[in-house]
C-alpha cells in the first residue's frame, strides 16, 4: 500500500506549506475537520498514490487563512467546514456566506465538548 504521512504544523505555516506542495505536484485530495479538543483540520494531498496530511489544531475562535488562492477547488471543502463546523476561514474564494448548504441548523457539527 502507498505511504501515509502526518505532519503537524502551526496555523500560520499552512499557506506556505500548501504552496510548497502545490509546486511539487501534489493534488489536494480532501480537507477534513474533527471537533475534538478544539478544531483539528487535516489537509490531505496525493501524489503517486502517497498521501501526505498537513494538520493544524486551533481553538474555535481562531481565524485561519484559506488555501483557495493556491488550490482553487478548496473552496468547496472550506465553505463546507465553515458551515458545518463554524470554523472561521478568511478569504475563501468564492465564499458562499453560509449558503452553500441548505440546512436548517446552524453549524450542526460544532458541538461544545469542553465539559465532557
Amino acid at each position: 500500500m502507498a505511504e501515509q504521512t502526518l505532519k503537524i504544523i502551526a496555523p500560520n505555516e499552512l499557506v506556505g506549506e500548501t504552496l510548497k506542495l502545490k509546486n511539487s505536484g501534489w493534488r489536494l485530495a480532501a480537507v477534513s475537520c474533527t471537533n475534538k479538543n478544539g478544531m483539528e483540520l487535516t489537509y490531505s494531498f496525493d501524489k503517486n498514490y502517497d498521501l501526505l496530511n498537513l494538520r493544524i489544531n486551533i481553538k474555535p475562535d481562531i481565524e485561519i487563512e484559506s488555501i483557495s488562492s493556491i488550490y482553487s477547488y478548496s473552496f468547496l471543502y472550506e465553505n463546507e467546514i465553515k458551515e458545518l463546523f463554524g470554523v472561521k476561514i478568511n478569504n475563501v474564494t468564492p465564499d458562499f456566506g453560509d449558503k452553500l448548504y441548505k440546512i436548517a441548523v446552524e453549524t450542526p457539527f460544532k458541538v461544545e465538548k469542553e465539559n465532557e
Partner: protein
Amino acid sequence: MGNRTVIPFGPQHPVLPEPIHLDLVLEDETVVQAIPRIGYVHRGLEKLVEKKDYQQYVFVAERICGICSFMHGMGYCMAIENIMNIKVPERAEFLRTIWAELSRMHSHMLWLGLLADAFGFESLFMHSWRIREEILDIFEMTTGGRVIFSVCEVGGVRKDITPEMLQKISDVMDKLKKEITEIANVFINDSSVKSRTVGVGVLTKQQAFDLGAVGPMARASGIDEDMRKQGYAAYGKLKFEPIIETAGDSYARTSVRIREIFESIDLIKQCIALIPEGEIKTKVTGNPNGEHFVRLEQPRGEVVYYAKANGTKFLDRVRVRTPTFANIPALLETLKGCALADVPILILTIDPCISCTER
C-alpha cells in the same frame, strides 16, 4: 456581450434523480458561470458515528449511497481494520473485490441508461437498465439484497460465495460481455449519440489536475490515476491497467466507463479463477484507537474515508470525501461556455451522486 440571464437549474429537474441547484449565468444561450448550492437532503451521517458504535456504523456507511453502498461499507471497514491492525482473510479480500467490481458494473450500466435517457434515446436507456438487472440478480443470489447488502463487516465478510454461485457468476459475465458489447457499439458509434457527446464539455488534462477531478472524469482527460492500483483488497494480485482517454469531452467520459465495465468483467473472472479456500472473517476484539485514511476507487472515482478512534467503541470522527464532491469544481468549469441545451448532459457526465455528497 449578449443579454445576461440567470436561470435556476434544479434542485428538481427531469435529469436529476436527486436535488442539487445551479444558478446558470447565461449570455444568450451560452453558460458563462454556474454557481452551485447543495445540502437539500443533508443527513449528517458522519455525525451519527458518535451515537452508533464502530461495528454498527458499517450499516450507516452502507446507506450513504444506494449505488456504491458496498464500497462505502468496505471503505469504512478498511479504515477500522487498519487502525486495529486486523488481517482480513485472503478469501474475504477476493469476495470484497468481486462485489466491488459488480458494483462498478451496475453503477456504470445505470449511468449509461441515464445518459441515454438524457438525450432522449429511450430504447438505449431501457436496454442498459435491462442488462443491469442481471447484475442485481447476482447481488440478490450472493447477499440476499439488491441495493444494501450488509455483507461487509470489520474483519471480513458475513457471507461466502459457493463454488456453484461462482460458476454461475462466471457464466453471467460471459453472457453480459456479449450483450454489453451490442449496446456499447451504439454509445461509441451511433451518430446521434456522438453528436451530443463529442467535443462537448472538454476538460483538459491540466484543468482536471488543477480542479482536483477524480475517477473517470479525470481519466477521460488523460490523468493516469486509479486507486485500485494501490493494491487494496485483492487488486494487488490482479492484472489490470487504469482506463485512460485523452479527449476530455463527454464522449471520452462515456468511453472510459464503457471500457471499465469490460475491465470489471475481466477482474471478476480473474477473482473467480484465483480465489483461495479459507476463512471469510477474522474475529475482532477490543476497540479501535488511532486514526487512518483509506482511499478506494468507487465507480465515480476516489473516495476518501477517514476514521479517528479513541479506544472506546464510539469513534471521534468519520469523514467521507465522496467523488462527486471532488468533481463539482470540474463540472463548474466544463459548464462554462457550453450551450444551455448541453447542461443536462454535462451534469450527467460527471455521474453525480448527490446522495453521497449529502452524507
